[in-house]
């Protein structure tokens, strides 16, 4: 069966890697899209780290398309031009076979941000040989839920009405996150999940969703959603005393928390994460031992729960 040859291939690579440790390495970065500030932040981290560490890097742009990304990974294996792959998967399940090919070809693979495979509740590597540096969606959701509860408590609201703006209903990753968030919210006493609507990943989507939520639930207390959606929602709830919680660590989100406009945001230093992924990949490619499974929250203050205190002195690492 495919994948069984992985073991031999990676030992062969290890010895070869040991040989040319210190030689220049080439990194391929498979990001969400070139037109995505988040992915560009990851890219900037990777590129900077590579420059400083005798390596080159290239950005493959699938423009958000999962299948295109698979092809790019396959073709990059074929082209034999790379030693390290950093994969920010548009769809964690689709890229698995291509990553198996890459591992088999002796390429060091780092899964960045999106878990690669079909389990969204673990940072464990789901593809043998792939190093992870991921944001575990279930943990992410749980922390969003916990932040929601904290928000309620901060104002002693009881009952406390929370609206959750989901990402996209058709994406399993989003659903795993939503499920965990909802669980955390419902577990808390006095917290009521008053509304669940699709908010998506654009200001436009968030704005629209917020307008409708307010019509149905004029007395909503807390709103949670992607940082983009929350930015869109903000203009709608201005002056209504609603507590906002974003999911994402953009400069704008961090600043909003610091200025007290938002209650909190789930913060990950994405540029640093890019650099860390490059570090992990290059180290392994140069024959060093590295930790196989890593959660991105390790890089963040307060495990990613970006409240005002936790984010003191932090600036976000990308714009949105």
């Amino acid at each position, binding site marked *: 069966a495919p994948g069984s040859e992985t073991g031999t291939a990676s030992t062969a690579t290890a010895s070869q890697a040991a040989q040319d440790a210190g030689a220049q390495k080439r990194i391929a970065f498979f990001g969400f*899209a*070139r*037109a*995505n*500030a988040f*992915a*560009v932040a990851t*890219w900037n981290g990777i590129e900077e780290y590579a420059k400083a560490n005798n390596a080159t890097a290239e950005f493959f*742009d699938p*423009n*958000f398309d999962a299948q295109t990304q698979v092809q790019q990974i396959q073709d990059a294996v074929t082209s034999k031009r790379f030693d390290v792959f950093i994969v920010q998967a548009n769809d964690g399940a689709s890229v698995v076979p291509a990553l198996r090919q890459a591992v088999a070809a002796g390429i060091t693979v780092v899964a960045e941000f999106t878990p690669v495979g079909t389990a969204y509740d673990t940072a464990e590597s789901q593809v043998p040989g792939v190093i992870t540096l991921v944001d575990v969606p279930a943990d992410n959701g749980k922390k969003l839920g916990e932040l929601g509860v904290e928000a309620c408590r901060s104002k002693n609201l009881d009952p406390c009405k929370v609206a959750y703006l*989901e990402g996209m*209903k*058709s994406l399993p990753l989003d659903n795993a996150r939503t499920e965990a968030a909802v669980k955390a919210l419902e577990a808390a006493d006095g917290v009521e999940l008053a*509304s*669940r*609507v*699709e908010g998506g990943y654009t*200001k*436009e989507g968030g*704005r*629209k*969703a917020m*307008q*409708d*939520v*307010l*019509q*149905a639930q004029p007395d909503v207390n807390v709103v949670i959603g992607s940082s983009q959606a929350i*930015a*869109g929602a903000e*203009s709608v709830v201005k002056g209504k005393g609603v507590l906002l919680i974003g999911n994402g660590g953009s400069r704008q989100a961090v600043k909003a928390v610091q200025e007290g406009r938002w209650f909190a945001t789930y913060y990950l230093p994405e540029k640093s994460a890019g650099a860390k992924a490059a570090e992990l990949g290059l180290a392994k490619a140069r024959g060093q031992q590295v930790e196989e499974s890593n959660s991105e929250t390790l890089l963040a203050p307060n495990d990613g729960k970006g409240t005002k205190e936790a984010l003191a002195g932090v600036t976000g690492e990308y*714009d*949105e």
Partner: protein
Amino acid sequence: MTATTADVKDVKAAPGRSARLRDLGIVLGVVLIIVVLSVSTSTFLTTGNLVNLLDQAAVVGLLATAATLVIISGSFDLSITAVLALSAIVAVAVTNVAGVGPGMVAGVLAGAVLGMINGIVVVRIKVHSFIATLALSIIYRGVAVILTAGAIVYPAEDRATAFQALSWPTVLGGVTAASLLFLLVVAVCWIVLARTTFGRRVYAIGGNEEAARLSGIRVGQIKVAVFAISGVCAALGGLILAARGGSAQASLATGMEMTAIAAAVVGGTSVMGGEGAIWRGLIGVLLITLIGNGFNLLGWDTIYQQVVQGALILGAVSLDRLLRGRRS
């Protein structure tokens, strides 16, 4: 000679009125949904919600207007959202150099120019508009990525507030400036299409391009003009989105062109060209916006949203079809 006349007369017994009424099948569908929502929620028929609805409809509405116009002329414009994104980026860039006013003008001009490029490629190279505008939209998005290096671009701090003027509520009951702009553009396009000879030419070209050409209509020029108008509508949509977000980026409004085209067609504009109306595109937008709005207000489990959404669209279109009756 009278016999022929009689034939004509007795056969054509007053079809006008009933045909008009039957044309309104889709309107009936929308009215039905409005009634249901008004009865089943206390929130639907509030000024606040109606103002929201209009605001939500503004950008898709502009794009649907563009789509309707182009489809009536017998073409497709799949590049509208790429034009939207690129124009918004141009507007931000020029705002930073020369101020908000010039920035807005530059955005609109960019839309017009990109639209004209679409038109010229379709007319000159005679590539079918479907594929030409698809390829061009890839190019436009690519240019947008190059211009912004994939990042989000913002107007300078001191111009940010003025740049967002389109997103402000106005004295007219809190209706946003964006909504007013949208209504204005729709009114202009509607009148142009329904009342001017330019509008007639557009219908003629969409209905039978060869007949139009043989009658001395400058088919090429009209088509380029139609694509240019489409580009301007898209650019205005881009200005609104950029004003709302206070920024622009290459991926702005990705995929929204299909919603816009769907709205145009749902409203009853024929994909074959030569038939349809701006108000039909509006009805389509209203229908789609209403369904989303209603779902959110009703608080139904969102897991059923898509199924219900699809079914309502299909239902409304079928109703329209049944009332209008078939033609051989």
